Protein backbone atom coordinates (compact mmCIF):
# COMPACT_ATOMS: atom_id res chain seq x y z
CA UNK A 1 0.00 0.00 0.00
CA UNK A 2 1.41 3.36 -0.97
CA UNK A 3 1.66 6.14 1.52
CA UNK A 4 -1.09 8.07 -0.20
CA UNK A 5 -3.55 5.23 -0.05
CA UNK A 6 -2.68 4.53 3.56
CA UNK A 7 -3.14 8.16 4.43
CA UNK A 8 -6.49 8.40 2.70
CA UNK A 9 -7.74 5.23 4.31
CA UNK A 10 -6.75 6.67 7.65
CA UNK A 11 -8.67 9.80 6.72
CA UNK A 12 -11.67 7.68 5.82
CA UNK A 13 -11.58 5.79 9.08
CA UNK A 14 -11.00 9.06 10.92
CA UNK A 15 -14.06 10.62 9.37
CA UNK A 16 -16.02 7.48 10.04
CA UNK A 17 -15.15 7.58 13.70
CA UNK A 18 -16.13 11.24 13.79
CA UNK A 19 -19.41 10.12 12.30
CA UNK A 20 -19.76 7.37 14.83
CA UNK A 21 -19.09 9.75 17.67
CA UNK A 22 -21.71 12.14 16.35
CA UNK A 23 -24.13 9.27 16.14
CA UNK A 24 -23.39 8.09 19.63
CA UNK A 25 -23.74 11.61 20.95
CA UNK A 26 -27.10 11.94 19.27
CA UNK A 27 -28.09 8.57 20.62
CA UNK A 28 -27.37 9.62 24.17
CA UNK A 29 -28.98 13.00 23.64
CA UNK A 30 -32.20 11.48 22.34
CA UNK A 31 -32.44 8.61 24.74
CA UNK A 32 -31.33 10.22 27.95
CA UNK A 33 -34.51 12.22 28.63
CA UNK A 34 -36.50 9.01 28.37
CA UNK A 35 -33.91 7.24 30.47
CA UNK A 36 -34.31 9.93 33.08
CA UNK A 37 -38.03 9.33 33.14
CA UNK A 38 -37.49 5.59 33.28
CA UNK A 39 -35.33 6.00 36.34
CA UNK A 40 -37.62 8.55 37.94
CA UNK A 41 -40.93 6.87 37.24
CA UNK A 42 -40.06 3.22 36.96
CA UNK A 43 -36.79 2.07 38.48
CA UNK A 44 -36.65 4.33 41.51
CA UNK A 45 -40.28 3.71 42.50
CA UNK A 46 -39.83 -0.04 42.25
CA UNK A 47 -36.77 0.10 44.43
CA UNK A 48 -38.53 2.38 46.89
CA UNK A 49 -41.54 0.08 47.02
CA UNK A 50 -39.27 -2.83 47.68
CA UNK A 51 -37.53 -0.97 50.48
CA UNK A 52 -40.81 0.21 51.95
CA UNK A 53 -42.08 -3.33 51.99
CA UNK A 54 -39.42 -4.08 54.52
CA UNK A 55 -40.71 -1.43 56.93
CA UNK A 56 -43.85 -0.71 58.87
CA UNK A 57 -44.17 2.80 57.49
CA UNK A 58 -47.53 4.51 57.62
CA UNK A 59 -48.19 7.68 55.69
CA UNK A 60 -47.77 10.69 57.91
CA UNK A 61 -46.10 8.70 60.66
CA UNK A 62 -43.09 10.27 62.24
CA UNK A 63 -41.39 7.07 63.26
CA UNK A 64 -41.05 3.83 61.43
CA UNK A 65 -38.79 0.80 61.69
CA UNK A 66 -37.45 -2.03 59.61
CA UNK A 67 -39.35 -5.26 59.87
CA UNK A 68 -37.44 -7.30 57.36
CA UNK A 69 -39.64 -9.85 55.68
CA UNK A 70 -42.23 -9.51 58.39
CA UNK A 71 -44.74 -7.88 56.07
CA UNK A 72 -44.47 -10.76 53.66
CA UNK A 73 -45.01 -13.46 56.22
CA UNK A 74 -47.95 -11.49 57.59
CA UNK A 75 -49.30 -11.17 54.11
CA UNK A 76 -49.40 -14.85 53.39
CA UNK A 77 -51.02 -15.53 56.71
CA UNK A 78 -53.55 -12.79 56.16
CA UNK A 79 -56.96 -14.24 55.47
CA UNK A 80 -58.09 -11.18 53.60
CA UNK A 81 -55.10 -11.12 51.28
CA UNK A 82 -55.35 -14.82 50.55
CA UNK A 83 -59.04 -14.53 49.86
CA UNK A 84 -58.37 -11.62 47.54
CA UNK A 85 -55.71 -13.61 45.77
CA UNK A 86 -58.07 -16.55 45.40
CA UNK A 87 -60.81 -14.35 44.00
CA UNK A 88 -58.43 -12.87 41.49
CA UNK A 89 -57.35 -16.31 40.35
CA UNK A 90 -60.94 -17.41 39.92
CA UNK A 91 -61.70 -14.28 37.94
CA UNK A 92 -58.69 -14.83 35.69
CA UNK A 93 -59.59 -18.48 35.26
CA UNK A 94 -62.97 -17.48 33.87
CA UNK A 95 -62.02 -14.45 31.84
CA UNK A 96 -58.94 -15.76 30.06
CA UNK A 97 -60.41 -18.89 28.46
CA UNK A 98 -63.69 -17.08 27.89
CA UNK A 99 -62.31 -14.09 26.06
CA UNK A 100 -59.59 -15.98 24.21
CA UNK A 101 -61.88 -18.68 22.88
CA UNK A 102 -64.67 -16.26 22.15
CA UNK A 103 -62.22 -13.90 20.45
CA UNK A 104 -60.76 -16.69 18.32
CA UNK A 105 -64.17 -17.98 17.36
CA UNK A 106 -65.36 -14.54 16.31
CA UNK A 107 -62.14 -13.86 14.43
CA UNK A 108 -62.51 -17.05 12.42
CA UNK A 109 -66.09 -16.20 11.53
CA UNK A 110 -65.34 -12.59 10.69
CA UNK A 111 -62.32 -13.49 8.60
CA UNK A 112 -64.45 -15.23 6.01
CA UNK A 113 -66.93 -12.42 5.52
CA UNK A 114 -66.33 -9.87 2.81
CA UNK A 115 -68.93 -7.11 2.89
CA UNK A 116 -69.96 -7.38 6.50
CA UNK A 117 -66.44 -7.80 7.83
CA UNK A 118 -65.83 -4.15 8.64
CA UNK A 119 -69.16 -3.71 10.38
CA UNK A 120 -68.65 -6.73 12.61
CA UNK A 121 -65.11 -5.65 13.41
CA UNK A 122 -66.36 -2.26 14.51
CA UNK A 123 -69.15 -3.66 16.64
CA UNK A 124 -66.95 -6.16 18.41
CA UNK A 125 -64.19 -3.68 19.02
CA UNK A 126 -66.46 -0.99 20.39
CA UNK A 127 -66.49 -2.21 24.01
CA UNK A 128 -62.68 -2.17 24.08
CA UNK A 129 -62.57 1.57 23.69
CA UNK A 130 -65.40 2.61 25.94
CA UNK A 131 -65.05 4.02 29.40
CA UNK A 132 -65.39 0.90 31.49
CA UNK A 133 -66.62 2.81 34.52
CA UNK A 134 -69.58 4.19 32.67
CA UNK A 135 -70.38 0.88 31.04
CA UNK A 136 -70.00 -0.88 34.39
CA UNK A 137 -72.74 1.34 35.70
CA UNK A 138 -74.83 0.32 32.71
CA UNK A 139 -74.07 -3.38 33.24
CA UNK A 140 -74.93 -3.00 36.90
CA UNK A 141 -78.29 -1.68 35.84
CA UNK A 142 -78.72 -4.32 33.15
CA UNK A 143 -78.18 -7.08 35.66
CA UNK A 144 -80.20 -5.42 38.38
CA UNK A 145 -82.56 -8.11 39.71
CA UNK A 146 -85.63 -5.92 40.02
CA UNK A 147 -85.13 -3.30 37.36
CA UNK A 148 -82.92 -4.86 34.77
CA UNK A 149 -84.22 -6.26 31.49
CA UNK A 150 -82.25 -9.48 31.76
CA UNK A 151 -83.98 -10.26 35.02
CA UNK A 152 -87.36 -9.66 33.43
CA UNK A 153 -86.33 -11.96 30.64
CA UNK A 154 -85.28 -14.73 32.96
CA UNK A 155 -88.45 -14.31 34.96
CA UNK A 156 -90.48 -14.57 31.80
CA UNK A 157 -88.62 -17.72 30.83
CA UNK A 158 -89.36 -19.22 34.20
CA UNK A 159 -85.79 -19.17 35.44
CA UNK A 160 -86.60 -16.89 38.34
CA UNK A 161 -84.61 -13.98 39.56
CA UNK A 162 -80.91 -13.90 40.13
CA UNK A 163 -79.00 -11.14 41.81
CA UNK A 164 -75.64 -11.39 40.16
CA UNK A 165 -73.84 -8.78 42.18
CA UNK A 166 -75.53 -9.54 45.45
CA UNK A 167 -75.01 -13.28 45.44
CA UNK A 168 -71.62 -14.26 46.81
CA UNK A 169 -71.44 -17.26 44.53
CA UNK A 170 -72.31 -15.34 41.40
CA UNK A 171 -70.50 -12.06 41.83
CA UNK A 172 -67.17 -13.09 40.36
CA UNK A 173 -68.99 -14.60 37.45
CA UNK A 174 -70.87 -11.35 36.86
CA UNK A 175 -67.65 -9.37 36.92
CA UNK A 176 -66.10 -11.93 34.58
CA UNK A 177 -68.90 -11.45 32.07
CA UNK A 178 -68.13 -7.75 31.95
CA UNK A 179 -64.44 -8.53 31.69
CA UNK A 180 -65.00 -10.88 28.77
CA UNK A 181 -67.32 -8.36 27.16
CA UNK A 182 -64.56 -5.82 27.16
CA UNK A 183 -61.72 -8.03 26.01
CA UNK A 184 -63.26 -10.03 23.18
CA UNK A 185 -62.85 -7.31 20.58
CA UNK A 186 -59.21 -6.79 21.40
CA UNK A 187 -58.43 -10.47 21.13
CA UNK A 188 -60.43 -10.67 17.94
CA UNK A 189 -58.23 -8.06 16.31
CA UNK A 190 -55.06 -9.88 17.33
CA UNK A 191 -56.36 -13.20 16.07
CA UNK A 192 -57.48 -11.61 12.82
CA UNK A 193 -53.95 -10.39 12.24
CA UNK A 194 -52.66 -13.88 12.91
CA UNK A 195 -55.24 -15.48 10.65
CA UNK A 196 -54.47 -13.16 7.77
CA UNK A 197 -50.85 -14.20 7.97
CA UNK A 198 -51.69 -17.83 7.23
CA UNK A 199 -50.89 -18.53 3.55
CA UNK A 200 -53.97 -19.39 1.55
CA UNK A 201 -52.04 -22.13 -0.23
CA UNK A 202 -52.12 -24.25 2.89
CA UNK A 203 -55.90 -24.30 2.86
CA UNK A 204 -55.91 -25.20 -0.84
CA UNK A 205 -53.46 -28.02 -0.22
CA UNK A 206 -55.62 -29.17 2.67
CA UNK A 207 -58.69 -29.13 0.42
CA UNK A 208 -56.98 -31.35 -2.09
CA UNK A 209 -55.59 -33.62 0.58
CA UNK A 210 -59.07 -34.08 1.91
CA UNK A 211 -58.97 -31.89 5.00
CA UNK A 212 -61.80 -29.72 3.80
CA UNK A 213 -64.23 -29.96 6.72
CA UNK A 214 -64.37 -27.10 9.21
CA UNK A 215 -62.86 -29.15 12.03
CA UNK A 216 -60.02 -30.57 9.95
CA UNK A 217 -59.09 -27.20 8.51
CA UNK A 218 -59.01 -25.72 11.98
CA UNK A 219 -57.12 -28.54 13.65
CA UNK A 220 -54.56 -29.14 10.94
CA UNK A 221 -53.91 -25.70 9.52
CA UNK A 222 -55.43 -22.81 11.49
CA UNK A 223 -54.63 -23.77 15.05
CA UNK A 224 -51.00 -24.84 14.50
CA UNK A 225 -50.27 -21.73 12.46
CA UNK A 226 -51.77 -19.47 15.11
CA UNK A 227 -49.29 -20.61 17.75
CA UNK A 228 -47.36 -17.37 18.32
CA UNK A 229 -50.51 -15.27 18.12
CA UNK A 230 -52.30 -17.45 20.64
CA UNK A 231 -49.36 -17.15 22.98
CA UNK A 232 -49.42 -13.39 22.80
CA UNK A 233 -53.17 -13.19 23.26
CA UNK A 234 -53.20 -15.50 26.27
CA UNK A 235 -50.37 -13.68 27.98
CA UNK A 236 -51.76 -10.19 27.49
CA UNK A 237 -55.27 -11.27 28.44
CA UNK A 238 -53.99 -12.89 31.60
CA UNK A 239 -52.04 -9.84 32.66
CA UNK A 240 -54.99 -7.58 31.89
CA UNK A 241 -57.34 -9.84 33.82
CA UNK A 242 -55.03 -9.85 36.82
CA UNK A 243 -55.32 -6.09 36.89
CA UNK A 244 -59.08 -6.05 37.33
CA UNK A 245 -60.07 -3.03 39.39
CA UNK A 246 -62.51 -0.71 37.71
CA UNK A 247 -65.52 -2.96 37.78
CA UNK A 248 -64.96 -3.86 41.41
CA UNK A 249 -64.47 -0.24 42.46
CA UNK A 250 -67.63 0.87 40.72
CA UNK A 251 -70.05 -1.99 41.20
CA UNK A 252 -69.26 -4.19 44.14
CA UNK A 253 -66.53 -2.56 46.26
CA UNK A 254 -65.45 -6.03 47.22
CA UNK A 255 -68.89 -7.15 48.33
CA UNK A 256 -70.78 -9.22 49.05
CA UNK A 257 -68.78 -10.39 51.99
CA UNK A 258 -65.48 -9.76 50.34
CA UNK A 259 -66.22 -12.33 47.65
CA UNK A 260 -65.36 -9.90 44.92
CA UNK A 261 -62.37 -8.39 46.64
CA UNK A 262 -59.55 -8.62 44.14
CA UNK A 263 -55.83 -8.08 44.44
CA UNK A 264 -55.68 -4.51 43.20
CA UNK A 265 -58.72 -3.48 45.16
CA UNK A 266 -57.27 -4.82 48.39
CA UNK A 267 -54.05 -3.05 47.53
CA UNK A 268 -55.94 0.17 46.98
CA UNK A 269 -57.73 -0.10 50.28
CA UNK A 270 -54.65 -0.93 52.31
CA UNK A 271 -52.42 1.58 50.62
CA UNK A 272 -54.62 4.52 49.82
CA UNK A 273 -57.44 4.29 52.31
CA UNK A 274 -55.73 2.86 55.37
CA UNK A 275 -52.35 4.25 54.33
CA UNK A 276 -50.57 1.20 55.65
CA UNK A 277 -47.64 1.72 53.36
CA UNK A 278 -45.46 -1.13 54.59
CA UNK A 279 -47.92 -3.94 54.02
CA UNK A 280 -49.25 -2.31 50.88
CA UNK A 281 -45.75 -2.26 49.44
CA UNK A 282 -45.34 -5.92 50.22
CA UNK A 283 -48.59 -6.54 48.42
CA UNK A 284 -47.39 -4.55 45.46
CA UNK A 285 -44.23 -6.58 45.17
CA UNK A 286 -46.27 -9.77 45.48
CA UNK A 287 -48.54 -8.51 42.72
CA UNK A 288 -45.60 -7.73 40.46
CA UNK A 289 -44.08 -11.13 41.07
CA UNK A 290 -47.33 -12.90 40.29
CA UNK A 291 -47.75 -11.04 37.03
CA UNK A 292 -44.20 -11.77 35.93
CA UNK A 293 -44.37 -15.42 36.93
CA UNK A 294 -47.66 -16.00 35.18
CA UNK A 295 -46.38 -14.37 32.01
CA UNK A 296 -43.17 -16.38 32.04
CA UNK A 297 -44.86 -19.69 32.75
CA UNK A 298 -47.36 -19.21 29.99
CA UNK A 299 -44.69 -18.11 27.57
CA UNK A 300 -42.67 -21.20 28.34
CA UNK A 301 -45.48 -23.70 28.17
CA UNK A 302 -47.03 -22.47 24.98
CA UNK A 303 -43.74 -21.65 23.33
CA UNK A 304 -42.55 -25.21 23.61
CA UNK A 305 -45.55 -26.42 21.70
CA UNK A 306 -45.19 -23.99 18.85
CA UNK A 307 -43.60 -25.74 15.94
CA UNK A 308 -41.30 -23.86 13.72
Amino acid at each position, binding site marked *: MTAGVAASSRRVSASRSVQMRAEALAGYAFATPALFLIILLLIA*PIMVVFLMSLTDYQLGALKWSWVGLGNYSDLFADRIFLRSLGNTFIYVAIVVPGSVIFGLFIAILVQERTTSKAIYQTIFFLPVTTTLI*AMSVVWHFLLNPSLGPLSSLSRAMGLGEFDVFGDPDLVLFGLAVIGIWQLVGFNMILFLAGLTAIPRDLYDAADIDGADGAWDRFARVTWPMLGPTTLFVVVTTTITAFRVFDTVAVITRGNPMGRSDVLLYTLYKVGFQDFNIGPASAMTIAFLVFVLVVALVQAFVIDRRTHY
Partner: protein
Amino acid sequence: MARAPIRTDRLIGAIAAHFFLILGAAFMLLPFVWMLLTSIRPASEVFTAGFNPIPSSFAGVTNYSEALTKSPLLQFMWNGVVVCFGILAVQLLFAIPAGYALAKLSFRAQPLIFALVLFGLTVPVQVTALPIYIALANLNLLNTYFAIMLPFFLSVFGIFLFRQFFKSFPQEIIHAARLDGFTELEIILRIITPSAMPAIAAFAVFSVTSHWNDLYWPLIVTTSADHATPPLGMMIFRDQETGSNFGALMAGAAIITAPLIVVFLIAQRQFVRGITMTGVK
Protein backbone atom coordinates in the same frame (compact mmCIF):
# COMPACT_ATOMS: atom_id res chain seq x y z
CA MET B 1 -73.08 -26.87 -21.35
CA ALA B 2 -73.58 -27.58 -17.66
CA ARG B 3 -73.70 -24.71 -15.24
CA ALA B 4 -71.75 -25.22 -12.03
CA PRO B 5 -74.19 -25.20 -9.08
CA ILE B 6 -73.80 -23.04 -5.99
CA ARG B 7 -72.06 -24.98 -3.31
CA THR B 8 -74.84 -25.46 -0.83
CA ASP B 9 -72.47 -26.21 1.97
CA ARG B 10 -70.87 -22.81 1.57
CA LEU B 11 -74.25 -21.19 1.87
CA ILE B 12 -75.09 -23.11 5.02
CA GLY B 13 -71.73 -22.18 6.45
CA ALA B 14 -72.35 -18.52 5.75
CA ILE B 15 -75.76 -18.60 7.40
CA ALA B 16 -74.42 -20.33 10.48
CA ALA B 17 -71.57 -17.88 10.71
CA HIS B 18 -73.86 -14.89 10.52
CA PHE B 19 -76.10 -16.43 13.14
CA PHE B 20 -73.30 -16.62 15.67
CA LEU B 21 -71.89 -13.27 14.67
CA ILE B 22 -75.23 -11.56 15.13
CA LEU B 23 -75.65 -13.24 18.49
CA GLY B 24 -72.23 -12.02 19.54
CA ALA B 25 -72.87 -8.57 18.17
CA ALA B 26 -76.07 -8.37 20.16
CA PHE B 27 -74.14 -9.19 23.32
CA MET B 28 -71.59 -6.49 22.47
CA LEU B 29 -74.19 -3.84 21.77
CA LEU B 30 -76.65 -4.70 24.51
CA PRO B 31 -75.31 -2.28 27.12
CA PHE B 32 -75.06 0.59 24.65
CA VAL B 33 -78.55 0.10 23.38
CA TRP B 34 -80.01 -0.20 26.84
CA MET B 35 -78.08 2.80 28.03
CA LEU B 36 -79.47 4.97 25.27
CA LEU B 37 -82.99 3.67 25.62
CA THR B 38 -83.05 4.24 29.36
CA SER B 39 -81.57 7.67 28.99
CA ILE B 40 -84.65 8.82 27.13
CA ARG B 41 -87.14 7.11 29.42
CA PRO B 42 -89.06 9.02 32.06
CA ALA B 43 -87.94 8.17 35.61
CA SER B 44 -91.15 6.48 36.65
CA GLU B 45 -91.17 4.08 33.77
CA VAL B 46 -87.73 2.74 34.57
CA PHE B 47 -89.14 0.78 37.47
CA THR B 48 -91.79 -0.90 35.44
CA ALA B 49 -90.25 -1.25 32.02
CA GLY B 50 -88.81 -4.70 32.32
CA PHE B 51 -87.74 -5.94 28.92
CA ASN B 52 -89.86 -3.60 26.90
CA PRO B 53 -87.59 -1.55 24.68
CA ILE B 54 -89.96 1.19 23.66
CA PRO B 55 -90.31 4.07 26.10
CA SER B 56 -93.74 5.48 26.57
CA SER B 57 -92.70 9.06 26.32
CA PHE B 58 -89.62 10.93 25.39
CA ALA B 59 -87.87 12.18 28.49
CA GLY B 60 -84.51 12.69 26.90
CA VAL B 61 -84.32 16.38 27.48
CA THR B 62 -85.09 16.12 31.20
CA ASN B 63 -82.70 13.29 31.74
CA TYR B 64 -79.80 14.79 29.87
CA SER B 65 -80.18 18.20 31.40
CA GLU B 66 -80.39 16.72 34.86
CA ALA B 67 -77.21 14.79 34.12
CA LEU B 68 -75.45 17.92 32.99
CA THR B 69 -76.55 20.04 35.93
CA LYS B 70 -76.49 17.64 38.85
CA SER B 71 -72.79 17.03 38.47
CA PRO B 72 -70.22 19.02 36.56
CA LEU B 73 -70.03 16.48 33.75
CA LEU B 74 -68.65 19.00 31.32
CA GLN B 75 -65.95 19.90 33.79
CA PHE B 76 -65.03 16.23 34.02
CA MET B 77 -64.78 16.00 30.27
CA TRP B 78 -62.66 19.09 30.10
CA ASN B 79 -60.34 17.63 32.71
CA GLY B 80 -60.11 14.53 30.58
CA VAL B 81 -59.12 16.57 27.57
CA VAL B 82 -56.45 18.51 29.44
CA VAL B 83 -55.00 15.43 31.07
CA CYS B 84 -55.00 13.25 27.97
CA PHE B 85 -53.47 15.76 25.64
CA GLY B 86 -50.96 16.87 28.24
CA ILE B 87 -49.88 13.29 28.71
CA LEU B 88 -49.76 12.66 24.99
CA ALA B 89 -47.65 15.70 24.25
CA VAL B 90 -45.02 14.76 26.82
CA GLN B 91 -45.09 11.12 25.84
CA LEU B 92 -44.40 11.94 22.22
CA LEU B 93 -41.70 14.39 23.17
CA PHE B 94 -39.77 11.76 25.07
CA ALA B 95 -40.68 8.59 23.22
CA ILE B 96 -40.05 9.55 19.61
CA PRO B 97 -36.38 10.49 20.08
CA ALA B 98 -35.84 7.53 22.39
CA GLY B 99 -37.47 5.15 19.95
CA TYR B 100 -35.39 6.51 17.12
CA ALA B 101 -32.19 6.28 19.14
CA LEU B 102 -32.91 2.67 20.05
CA ALA B 103 -33.74 1.79 16.47
CA LYS B 104 -31.16 3.57 14.42
CA LEU B 105 -28.31 5.00 16.44
CA SER B 106 -25.60 2.95 17.99
CA PHE B 107 -24.27 3.90 21.36
CA ARG B 108 -22.96 1.92 24.26
CA ALA B 109 -25.93 2.20 26.55
CA GLN B 110 -28.41 1.21 23.84
CA PRO B 111 -28.91 -2.45 24.79
CA LEU B 112 -29.25 -1.55 28.44
CA ILE B 113 -31.90 1.06 27.78
CA PHE B 114 -33.80 -1.27 25.48
CA ALA B 115 -33.72 -3.96 28.15
CA LEU B 116 -35.15 -1.47 30.63
CA VAL B 117 -37.90 -0.62 28.17
CA LEU B 118 -38.81 -4.28 27.73
CA PHE B 119 -38.82 -4.70 31.49
CA GLY B 120 -41.06 -1.67 31.83
CA LEU B 121 -43.56 -3.21 29.43
CA THR B 122 -44.29 -5.98 31.88
CA VAL B 123 -44.69 -3.72 34.91
CA PRO B 124 -48.22 -2.49 35.46
CA VAL B 125 -48.61 1.14 36.53
CA GLN B 126 -50.11 0.16 39.86
CA VAL B 127 -46.74 -1.11 41.00
CA THR B 128 -45.13 2.32 40.97
CA ALA B 129 -48.19 4.09 42.33
CA LEU B 130 -47.31 4.11 46.02
CA PRO B 131 -43.95 5.88 46.01
CA ILE B 132 -45.00 8.42 43.42
CA TYR B 133 -48.08 9.17 45.47
CA ILE B 134 -46.05 9.63 48.62
CA ALA B 135 -43.64 11.92 46.84
CA LEU B 136 -46.48 14.02 45.48
CA ALA B 137 -48.15 14.12 48.87
CA ASN B 138 -44.99 15.35 50.49
CA LEU B 139 -44.57 18.00 47.80
CA ASN B 140 -48.17 19.09 48.28
CA LEU B 141 -48.86 18.45 44.65
CA LEU B 142 -51.84 16.18 45.05
CA ASN B 143 -55.08 17.02 43.30
CA THR B 144 -53.41 18.87 40.46
CA TYR B 145 -53.32 18.20 36.74
CA PHE B 146 -49.62 17.58 37.08
CA ALA B 147 -50.18 14.87 39.65
CA ILE B 148 -52.68 13.11 37.44
CA MET B 149 -50.36 13.18 34.47
CA LEU B 150 -46.98 12.54 36.06
CA PRO B 151 -46.68 8.72 36.07
CA PHE B 152 -47.76 8.56 32.48
CA PHE B 153 -45.21 10.94 31.07
CA LEU B 154 -43.11 7.85 30.60
CA SER B 155 -44.62 5.51 28.05
CA VAL B 156 -42.49 2.44 27.54
CA PHE B 157 -45.14 1.21 25.19
CA GLY B 158 -44.63 4.33 23.12
CA ILE B 159 -40.87 3.93 23.08
CA PHE B 160 -41.27 0.32 22.04
CA LEU B 161 -43.81 1.15 19.34
CA PHE B 162 -41.69 3.86 17.80
CA ARG B 163 -38.61 1.72 17.97
CA GLN B 164 -40.36 -1.03 16.05
CA PHE B 165 -41.62 1.51 13.56
CA PHE B 166 -38.28 3.19 13.03
CA LYS B 167 -36.52 -0.13 12.64
CA SER B 168 -38.07 -0.43 9.23
CA PHE B 169 -37.15 3.09 8.16
CA PRO B 170 -34.70 2.88 5.25
CA GLN B 171 -31.18 3.46 6.50
CA GLU B 172 -30.17 4.92 3.14
CA ILE B 173 -32.32 7.99 3.62
CA ILE B 174 -30.52 8.76 6.87
CA HIS B 175 -27.13 8.20 5.24
CA ALA B 176 -28.08 10.47 2.38
CA ALA B 177 -29.23 13.14 4.80
CA ARG B 178 -25.96 12.98 6.68
CA LEU B 179 -24.04 13.28 3.47
CA ASP B 180 -26.12 16.32 2.63
CA GLY B 181 -24.96 17.88 5.86
CA PHE B 182 -27.99 17.44 8.11
CA THR B 183 -27.20 17.36 11.80
CA GLU B 184 -28.67 14.54 13.83
CA LEU B 185 -31.17 16.94 15.37
CA GLU B 186 -32.30 18.11 11.95
CA ILE B 187 -32.67 14.55 10.80
CA ILE B 188 -34.99 13.71 13.60
CA LEU B 189 -37.01 16.88 13.28
CA ARG B 190 -37.27 17.26 9.52
CA ILE B 191 -37.15 13.69 8.27
CA ILE B 192 -37.91 11.13 10.94
CA THR B 193 -40.81 12.66 12.82
CA PRO B 194 -42.87 13.59 9.74
CA SER B 195 -42.45 10.07 8.42
CA ALA B 196 -43.77 8.66 11.66
CA MET B 197 -47.23 10.18 11.29
CA PRO B 198 -49.04 6.82 10.95
CA ALA B 199 -47.35 5.50 14.08
CA ILE B 200 -48.01 8.76 15.91
CA ALA B 201 -51.66 8.62 14.96
CA ALA B 202 -51.97 5.02 16.10
CA PHE B 203 -50.18 5.75 19.34
CA ALA B 204 -52.16 8.91 19.97
CA VAL B 205 -55.45 7.10 19.65
CA PHE B 206 -54.20 4.35 21.93
CA SER B 207 -52.81 6.70 24.54
CA VAL B 208 -55.77 9.06 24.66
CA THR B 209 -58.17 6.16 25.00
CA SER B 210 -56.36 4.41 27.80
CA HIS B 211 -55.81 7.59 29.80
CA TRP B 212 -59.28 8.92 29.28
CA ASN B 213 -60.53 5.63 30.69
CA ASP B 214 -58.10 5.32 33.56
CA LEU B 215 -59.61 5.11 37.03
CA TYR B 216 -56.96 3.81 39.41
CA TRP B 217 -54.48 6.63 39.42
CA PRO B 218 -56.91 9.57 39.24
CA LEU B 219 -58.91 7.95 42.00
CA ILE B 220 -55.84 8.00 44.21
CA VAL B 221 -54.51 11.48 43.57
CA THR B 222 -57.71 13.46 43.05
CA THR B 223 -59.53 14.62 46.12
CA SER B 224 -61.96 17.14 44.74
CA ALA B 225 -64.48 16.93 41.97
CA ASP B 226 -63.13 19.88 40.04
CA HIS B 227 -60.11 17.87 38.95
CA ALA B 228 -61.91 14.62 38.37
CA THR B 229 -61.36 12.85 35.09
CA PRO B 230 -64.33 11.28 33.29
CA PRO B 231 -64.21 7.82 34.94
CA LEU B 232 -63.92 9.35 38.39
CA GLY B 233 -66.59 11.83 37.47
CA MET B 234 -68.87 8.97 36.54
CA MET B 235 -68.37 7.44 39.96
CA ILE B 236 -69.11 10.73 41.67
CA PHE B 237 -72.19 11.24 39.57
CA ARG B 238 -73.38 7.73 40.25
CA ASP B 239 -72.98 8.20 43.98
CA GLN B 240 -75.10 11.33 43.84
CA GLU B 241 -77.74 9.70 41.79
CA THR B 242 -78.14 6.45 43.72
CA GLY B 243 -81.48 4.86 43.48
CA SER B 244 -83.47 7.75 42.13
CA ASN B 245 -83.20 8.64 38.54
CA PHE B 246 -81.81 5.86 36.40
CA GLY B 247 -82.74 7.76 33.32
CA ALA B 248 -80.46 10.61 34.26
CA LEU B 249 -77.79 8.15 35.34
CA MET B 250 -77.81 6.51 31.96
CA ALA B 251 -77.82 9.89 30.31
CA GLY B 252 -74.70 10.76 32.27
CA ALA B 253 -73.07 7.52 31.23
CA ALA B 254 -73.94 8.24 27.63
CA ILE B 255 -72.38 11.67 27.81
CA ILE B 256 -69.20 10.29 29.33
CA THR B 257 -68.75 7.54 26.78
CA ALA B 258 -69.76 9.54 23.74
CA PRO B 259 -66.47 11.31 22.98
CA LEU B 260 -64.42 8.14 22.84
CA ILE B 261 -66.96 6.36 20.71
CA VAL B 262 -66.82 9.21 18.24
CA VAL B 263 -63.02 9.14 18.27
CA PHE B 264 -63.10 5.40 17.78
CA LEU B 265 -65.47 5.51 14.85
CA ILE B 266 -63.31 8.11 13.14
CA ALA B 267 -59.94 6.61 13.93
CA GLN B 268 -60.69 2.90 13.89
CA ARG B 269 -57.96 2.04 11.53
CA GLN B 270 -55.29 3.71 13.68
CA PHE B 271 -56.48 1.72 16.67
CA VAL B 272 -56.24 -1.56 14.90
CA ARG B 273 -52.92 -0.66 13.42
CA GLY B 274 -51.54 0.27 16.83
CA ILE B 275 -52.53 -3.04 18.29
CA THR B 276 -51.32 -5.19 15.46
CA MET B 277 -48.07 -3.30 15.20
CA THR B 278 -46.98 -4.50 18.58
CA GLY B 279 -48.82 -7.79 18.65
CA VAL B 280 -47.38 -9.23 15.49
CA LYS B 281 -43.76 -9.04 16.49
